[in-house]
């Protein structure tokens, strides 16, 4: 490597001249405002089509909207749309049928209240912060509200409404899907042959339109021309229609939902499992730990932050469930499988915009409170623990 002085020096050095031409000036301006330019389109889109409609939806939720010739006419009706849902003629539809509270109902309410008080007390002991306290109060408000609804309807032998159905889809669906998804991921992370084949096959349902999933399961589960019809006949359930019983209908929707969403949990958990450092596992193997011990002591703590995050994502999407109940059962029998989104959709179809918006707003409230609580009190805790801060 020798330096030839003459040839290198032919390019004159010195400081760059400041931009002069108009094009350069424009470039300068662009670079100076690059920061804003980068986020401006996304912020504008979100403001226009997400934040503004959210606010406008609040206005619709407190109005009676009429279609009149050219456009819409709004009339302010206060909280009438909401009171209708909580105490008026839509109460049975939204919350469920309340009769006398059963003993189990009271037990559930007492247990929830007790747990909430203990939780508050623990926070008080760990150090009080105002924002944390308010956040916990909101969470507790939502939890006790849900407990009262559940205790007053299902646990007292009555039908629940769309709120209960939505929560059923979220809680049961997420739990089942997480359990099976993690189980499959654990199996696939073993030394098995054909790992890539299983990985690809198990992933496919995630790619399929929920609409297709709904119709496919409706076909497969059909008691007269579905593939399992002979089985039903043989067991003596030939005349039984799963869609006419609330519980079988809900279970079938959960099965369809699980078919679609287990792949997501499977694929993320599999990646998380494969990301657990081999050294730790091998060190434990050398120390003579059994498979279950290794999983409990080493693998599970390592994947818990991913597990919590994946559950959060899954729950966020689960709250919005609409396609499957719409297609498989149209919300029936009665309202047994109707989710809140579906209720809002039906209200919109009957041009009852105010009710539709108020149901949607309540869904937003429940989703935000429960997801934010889960994020703040579960996910963040595990992420922080993981980072050792």
């Amino acid at each position: 490597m020798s330096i030839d002085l003459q040839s290198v020096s032919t390019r004159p050095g010195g400081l760059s001249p400041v931009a002069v031409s108009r094009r350069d000036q424009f470039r300068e301006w662009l670079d100076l405002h690059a920061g804003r330019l980068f986020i401006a389109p996304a912020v504008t889109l979100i403001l226009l089509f997400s934040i503004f409609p959210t606010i406008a939806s609040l206005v619709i939720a407190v109005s009676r909207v009429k279609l009149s010739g050219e456009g819409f006419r709004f009339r302010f009706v206060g909280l009438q749309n909401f009171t209708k849902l909580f105490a008026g003629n839509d109460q049975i539809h939204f919350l469920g049928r309340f009769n006398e509270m059963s003993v189990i109902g009271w037990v559930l309410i007492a247990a929830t209240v007790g747990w909430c008080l203990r939780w508050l007390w623990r926070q008080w002991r760990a150090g009080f912060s105002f924002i944390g306290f308010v956040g916990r109060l909101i969470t507790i408000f939502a939890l006790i509200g849900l407990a009262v609804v559940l205790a007053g309807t299902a646990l007292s032998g009555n039908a629940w409404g769309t709120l209960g159905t939505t929560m059923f889809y979220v809680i049961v669906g997420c739990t089942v899907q997480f359990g099976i998804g993690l189980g499959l991921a654990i199996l696939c992370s073993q030394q098995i042959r054909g790992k890539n084949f299983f990985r690809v096959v198990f992933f496919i349902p995630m790619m399929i339109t929920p609409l297709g999933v709904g119709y496919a399961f409706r076909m497969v589960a059909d008691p007269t021309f579905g593939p399992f019809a002979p089985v039903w006949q043989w067991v003596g359930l030939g005349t039984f229609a799963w869609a006419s019983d609330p519980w079988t209908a809900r279970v079938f929707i959960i099965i369809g939902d699980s078919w679609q969403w287990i792949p997501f949990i499977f694929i993320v958990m599999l990646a998380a499992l494969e990301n657990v450092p081999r050294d730790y596992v091998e060190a434990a193997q050398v120390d003579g730990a059994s498979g279950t011990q290794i999983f409990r002591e080493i693998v599970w703590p390592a994947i818990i932050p991913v597990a919590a995050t994946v559950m959060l994502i899954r729950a966020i999407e689960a709250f919005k469930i609409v396609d499957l109940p719409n297609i498989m059962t149209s919300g029936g029998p009665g309202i047994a499988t109707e989710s809140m989104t579906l209720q809002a959709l039906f209200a919109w179809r009957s041009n009852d915009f105010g009710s539709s918006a108020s149901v949607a707003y309540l869904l937003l409230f429940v989703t935000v409170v429960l997801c934010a609580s889960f994020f703040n009190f579960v996910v963040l805790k595990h992420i922080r623990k993981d980072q050792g801060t």
Partner: protein
Amino acid sequence: MSDTPAFRPQAQPGLMQRLFEPPAVGKMAPVTAVFVYVVLAVWTAFVVFPLYWVFITSFKLPQSVSQGPFYLPFVDFQPSLHAWNDLLVKDWEDTLRAFVNSVIIALGATALAVMFGSMAAYGLARIQYRPKFGSIMLFVVILLGGVVAAVMTGLDWKIVFAVAFALFVLLLRAVSRFFVRTLSNGDILFWMISQRILPAIVVIIPVYMMFQSMGLVDTHFGLILAYSVTNLPIVVWLMHDFFAGIPLELEESAQLDGASRLFIFWDIVLPLTRPGLAATTLLTMILCWNEYLLAVFLSTSRAQTMPILVAAMNAGDRGILWWTMCVVIVVMIVPVVLMAVLLQRFIAKGVLTGAVKG
């Protein structure tokens, strides 16, 4: 005779031990192996069977569907192409239109979401933003006032918003120096990602009204806008971690060499995140391709997408035309599954890096 029992070879393991204990570290015991493969096989069947059923149903004649289940083509029923013929030959115009609509809308929305989303994600990963908390509150208050004013007075909302926006700019100039509390990049990022929580049903009615007054209902552009906004949070969330993972020195070096931010983004950063970009694009495209709820609200005939065509096979009083519906579903599934199989490793990685870092 020998006093070194410790060196005696181990006794031959018993049958139970051989069945239940792994022969070596990292290997499975025979019983475990059988269990694992049986479970995997059962699950494979559960995953594949509904797809298989959809696939064979698309080749069934109406009577093959209604007269009870037939499982194997050529064995217990004679496959027929009549449903395919109906859709692809007889009504090919409707099918093609829906397909083309779906392609245009999925591609357009994906392009828009990925472009704007990655720009925002990059900005948030690399540039410090310090928006004032007070300014944002002011904006929200004025926006709320604008909405209420437009609804109550019945004025044209475009005029109301022009006035509100002007008012916001003027007020901001006047009072912004009194605002002290600022937000950080993390707050903005959280705000953008948290938009995914918003159920589409909440915004759909106002968006529908907005689109109606702008003439965007039942147009490609309207659906593209709606889809890109719903998927923007996913793009921002996934891409942010890819951008944050690029060595900062590469960008600093380019900066010293005189490159502008936009040039660095285009010439250095985007090519380096190609795998992440591919995964994000694919995921967004699949979500747009499969979307149904927004399409129901925002398209009536001209901009109908494939999912709407699927639902249209539910012909009300005549029952469901299962055979043709299955054809449409197969047509919808095939391209997506092909892409997904090709790119599924990327998706796992992309989702994971996002998930781990939260």
